[in-house]
C-alpha cells in the first residue's frame, strides 16, 4: 500500500515539474516567436527573442525539462527522511541550475523590442539568473547538511538496534543449563 502511495506522489511531482519546466515555458516561447503586435496605422511591434534561435531554446527546455521531471519523480516518490530522497533532491537542484543557465546559454534571457518611432528597448535578465544560481547554491548546501543529519540519525538508530538481542538467543534461563 505504501509503495503505491509513493508512486502516486511521484507522478504528482512529475506532472507539476513537467508543466512548470516544459509545457508553460515552451508554449510561451513558441507563442512569443509567432506573436505579431500590430501598431496602427500599419506598423508591427517586433519582439526579437533569442535572435531567431527559438528552436535551440525549446530544445534545451524540453531536454533539461525531461531530466528534471524524471529526477522529480524519483525524489517525490522516495520515502520521507530517506537518503535517496535527499540525494535525488540535490540532483534535482543541480539539474535546475543547468535548466536556468540554459536560458542564458541559448540566448533567451535577453530580448529586444523595436518600437516604431521611439527606438529599441533591450531587456537582459542575466543578472536575475545569477541571483537564482546563488540561491540554488545555498539550497544545495542546505540539502547536503540535511543528508549528513539523516546519515547520522540512521547510524544512531542502527546502533540502538544492535543492543537488542532476542530472547531466543539464550533461552529462558540465559543458556545456563
Amino acid at each position, binding site marked *: 500500500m*505504501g509503495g503505491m502511495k509513493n*508512486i502516486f506522489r511521484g507522478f504528482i511531482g512529475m506532472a507539476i515539474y513537467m508543466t512548470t519546466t516544459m509545457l508553460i515555458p515552451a508554449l510561451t516561447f513558441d507563442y512569443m516567436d509567432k506573436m505579431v503586435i500590430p501598431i496602427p496605422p500599419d506598423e508591427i511591434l517586433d519582439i526579437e527573442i533569442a535572435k531567431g534561435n527559438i528552436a535551440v531554446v525549446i530544445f534545451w527546455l524540453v531536454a533539461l525539462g525531461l531530466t528534471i521531471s524524471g529526477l522529480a519523480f524519483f525524489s517525490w516518490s522516495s*520515502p520521507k527522511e530517506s537518503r535517496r530522497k535527499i540525494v535525488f533532491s540535490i540532483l534535482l537542484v543541480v539539474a535546475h541550475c543547468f535548466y536556468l543557465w540554459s536560458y542564458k546559454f541559448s540566448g533567451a534571457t535577453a530580448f529586444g523590442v523595436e518600437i516604431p518611432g521611439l527606438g529599441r528597448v533591450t531587456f537582459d535578465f542575466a543578472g536575475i539568473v545569477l541571483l537564482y544560481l*546563488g540561491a540554488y547554491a*545555498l539550497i544545495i548546501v542546505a540539502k547536503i547538511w540535511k543528508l549528513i543529519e539523516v546519515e547520522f540519525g540512521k547510524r544512531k538508530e542502527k546502533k540502538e538496534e544492535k543492543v*537488542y538481542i532476542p530472547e531466543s538467543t539464550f533461552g529462558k534461563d540465559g543458556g*545456563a543449563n
Partner: protein
Amino acid sequence: MILLQVDILRMIADFIGVIFLYSKVVLTPIGEVMKLWIEAVLNFIDTFIPMRYEIYIIIFIILVVSGVIINYHWSGEKKEVKEEEKKEMDVSAKKCKYCGKPIGDSEFCPYCGSRN
C-alpha cells in the same frame, strides 16, 4: 505602471525589490562561481553529446522506471512492533552486572556465569 497604482501590489513589489537588492550582494558572487562550472558542463554537453531528444527521453524513462521499482519495493514503511515484542525487547536488553554482556531475561550470565 497601472498595476502599481494599487497599494497592495506596490507594497509587494517594494518588498520583493528590497529582497532582491539586499540578497544580490551575497548571491550574485556565488552565482558567478556556479556559472563557471555550469557553463563548462553545458559546453561539454553541447560539443560532445548530439542535440537529440532521444537521449533525454531515455534518461527520463530510466529515472521513472527505476523510481517505480525501487520505491515500490522499498517503500520505507517500518514494521509494526507488537506490544508483546516490545516487552520482550525491554527484557532482552538486560545486561550482566559483572561483565556487561547481554543476558536476556535469565538469572545467570551465559558468559561469566555470575548470578544477576
